[in-house]
C-alpha cells in the first residue's frame, strides 16, 4: 500500500511536469491567437511573401525571413570549417597538454553574453568592415554573420568533440595497429564515424544563430530590404520583433510580429525534430 505522502509527492511532480511542458504549447497557442486575424483568407501568404511598408499598408515579413536565413547560413558557413579544424585540433592533432586548456577556453566562451558581442561589434568590427568593403555603413549581413560565427563556434566545437569522443576506442586502436598517424585517424576513422554528430552540431549552431537577437539588432543595420549582397544592411525576424513591438496593439503591424514569432517557433521545432531524428538514428546504429 502506498502512503498518502507518496501519492501527493508523485502528483506534485506530475503537476510540475504538466505545467512546464504546457508552457511550450501555451507560447505557441498565444502566438497563434494573437496572429489569428492574419491567418484567415490567404492573408498569411501575403505577409510571408511581401515587403514591409506600413505607410502603404503592407506588413510583409519576407525581407526579414531572407535576412534571417542569409545571416544564419553565412555565420554557419564561416564557423563550420573553423570549428571542424578546432575540434580536430583539440580532439587529436594538437599537443595534449595544451588541449585541456583550449577546451576550457571554448567552454567558457559559451558563457560570453551576446550583448557583448554586439557591443564590441559596433565599435570594433563595423568600422573595419566599412573600410574593407569600401561601401555601405559597415552594418551589414557579413558584419552580423562574422560576429555570430564567433558566438556559435563554441557550440559546434564542443558538440563535435563530444561526438569524436563517442567513436569507439577499439576503432582507433585498430587504426593504431595498422600504423595510422593522427591525421589518418582523424580523416579515416573519427570523421566518418562522427558524421551524424557533426550534422547535429551544425543544425544546433544554426538554430542558435537563427534565434539570436542582439547581434543582428546592433550591427546588421536593420534595413527593411531584401539584402542583395553581403555588404547590404538587413533585418532579422528577431530584430524585427524588437523594433516593431512598440506599435499599436490593435494594428496589423503589431499582429504581424506574432507571425514572425510563429515562423521562428516553427524553425526551432523543425531544428529540434531534425536533431532528434538524427539522434535516434545514431542510437539504433549501435
Amino acid at each position: 500500500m502506498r502512503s498518502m505522502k507518496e501519492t501527493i509527492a508523485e502528483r506534485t511532480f506530475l503537476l510540475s511536469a504538466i505545467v512546464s511542458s504546457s508552457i511550450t504549447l501555451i507560447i505557441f497557442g498565444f502566438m497563434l491567437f494573437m496572429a489569428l486575424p492574419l491567418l484567415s483568407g490567404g492573408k498569411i501568404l501575403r505577409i510571408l511573401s511581401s515587403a514591409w511598408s506600413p505607410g502603404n499598408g503592407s506588413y510583409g515579413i519576407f525581407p526579414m525571413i531572407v535576412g534571417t536565413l542569409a545571416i544564419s547560413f553565412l555565420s554557419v558557413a564561416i564557423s563550420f570549417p573553423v570549428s571542424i579544424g578546432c575540434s580536430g585540433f583539440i580532439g587529436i592533432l594538437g599537443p595534449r597538454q595544451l588541449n585541456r586548456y583550449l577546451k576550457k577556453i571554448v567552454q567558457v566562451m559559451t558563457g560570453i553574453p551576446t550583448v557583448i558581442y554586439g557591443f564590441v561589434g559596433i565599435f570594433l568590427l563595423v568600422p573595419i568592415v566599412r573600410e574593407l568593403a569600401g561601401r555601405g555603413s559597415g552594418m551589414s549581413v557579413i558584419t552580423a554573420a562574422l560576429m555570430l560565427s564567433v558566438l556559435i563556434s563554441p557550440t559546434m566545437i564542443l558538440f563535435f568533440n563530444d561526438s569524436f569522443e563517442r567513436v569507439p576506442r577499439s576503432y582507433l586502436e585498430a587504426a593504431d595497429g595498422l600504423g595510422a598517424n593522427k591525421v589518418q585517424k582523424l580523416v579515416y576513422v573519427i570523421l566518418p564515424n562522427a558524421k551524424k554528430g557533426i550534422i547535429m552540431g551544425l543544425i544546433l549552431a544554426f538554430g542558435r544563430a537563427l534565434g539570436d537577437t542582439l547581434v543582428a539588432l546592433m550591427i546588421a543595420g536593420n534595413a527593411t530590404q531584401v539584402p542583395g549582397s553581403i555588404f547590404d544592411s538587413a533585418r532579422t525576424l528577431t530584430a524585427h520583433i524588437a523594433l516593431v513591438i512598440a506599435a499599436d496593439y490593435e494594428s496589423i503591424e503589431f499582429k504581424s510580429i506574432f507571425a514572425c514569432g510563429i515562423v521562428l517557433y516553427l524553425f526551432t521545432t523543425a531544428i529540434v525534430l531534425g536533431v532528434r531524428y538524427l539522434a535516434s538514428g545514431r542510437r539504433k546504429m549501435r
Partner: protein
Amino acid sequence: MKKIYGIVALAVFCFVLCSTSSSFAGPLDAFKGEKGTVKISGGTAHIPVMKEAARLIMTANPDIQITIAGGGSGVGVKQVGEGLVDIGNTGRKPTDDEIKRYDLKLFLWAIDGVALIVNPNNKVRSLGKAQARDIFSGKIDNWKALGGEDRKINIYTRDEASGTREVFWEKAIAKGTIAKSANVVVSNGAMKSAVSQDPYGIGYVSVGHIDKTVAPVTFDGVTPEIETVKSGKYTIARGLYSNTKGNPAPLTKKFLDFLFTDEGQKIIAANGFIPVK
C-alpha cells in the same frame, strides 16, 4: 492688546519663515512627503530632459521612483493610452484621432527642430529640399553628386513609431519615400552616435541633440539651430509634448508642473530646446 497681536504676528511670521526657509532650495519642495512611481515612455528626444528632471526629483526625495523608457512617439501615445505608463511623450502633436480615442491631455513644454546631420568629416554641409528628397529616396546615392567624396551615401532613418521621423518626412522631404536600404536606428541618441561613427552617413535628429560629434546640414539655406527655429526661419520645427490619459494623477501632475518651473525650463534650455515660457 495690540502688543499681543503684534507678538503673535511676529511669532507667526517667524514660524512661517523658519518652516519655509528651505523653500529657497526651489521648486523641488513640491515633492516633499510624496511617495510613488511615475512611469514615462515614448519620445526619445525628451529623454535627456526627463532624466535630468528625474535625477533632481529623486535626489530630493528618494521615496519617489521615476522610470524612463524610450520607444518613440508612437509608443508613448499607445502606452499612455492603454494605461501602461503615466506619461507618454511625443515629438509631434498627437493626432486628433489619438487625442479623442485615448482622452489625452497635452502638455507642450518645449519647441524643437529636426535637422539633417552628417559626419563632421563630410564636406557636404548644405542641401536643398529637392536634394534631401532625392537622397532619402535613393535617387542620389553618391556623395560625389553633391560635391563630396566618391562614396555611397549611407542613409539612416528611424522606425515607424518615431515622431522625429514623421516630422522629418512631412516637413523636410514632403512625404517622399525613404529607401528600403536605409539603416534603421531606434532613437535620437542612436541616430547621433550612428552618424558620428559613419563618415559617409546622413540622418536626421532633434536639433537639441546636435553636438560637436555630428555636423548639422544647412537646409534650404537655413542653418538648423536654436535661434533659427525660434525665429521661425527654420521650418522643420515641432513641439515636444508630454501627454497623460485624462487629468494626471497628483504626483504625475507635480512632475509635469516641475517642467514648467524656472528650474525645469532651465533644464530644457540646457538640453538645447526652446522652453515654452
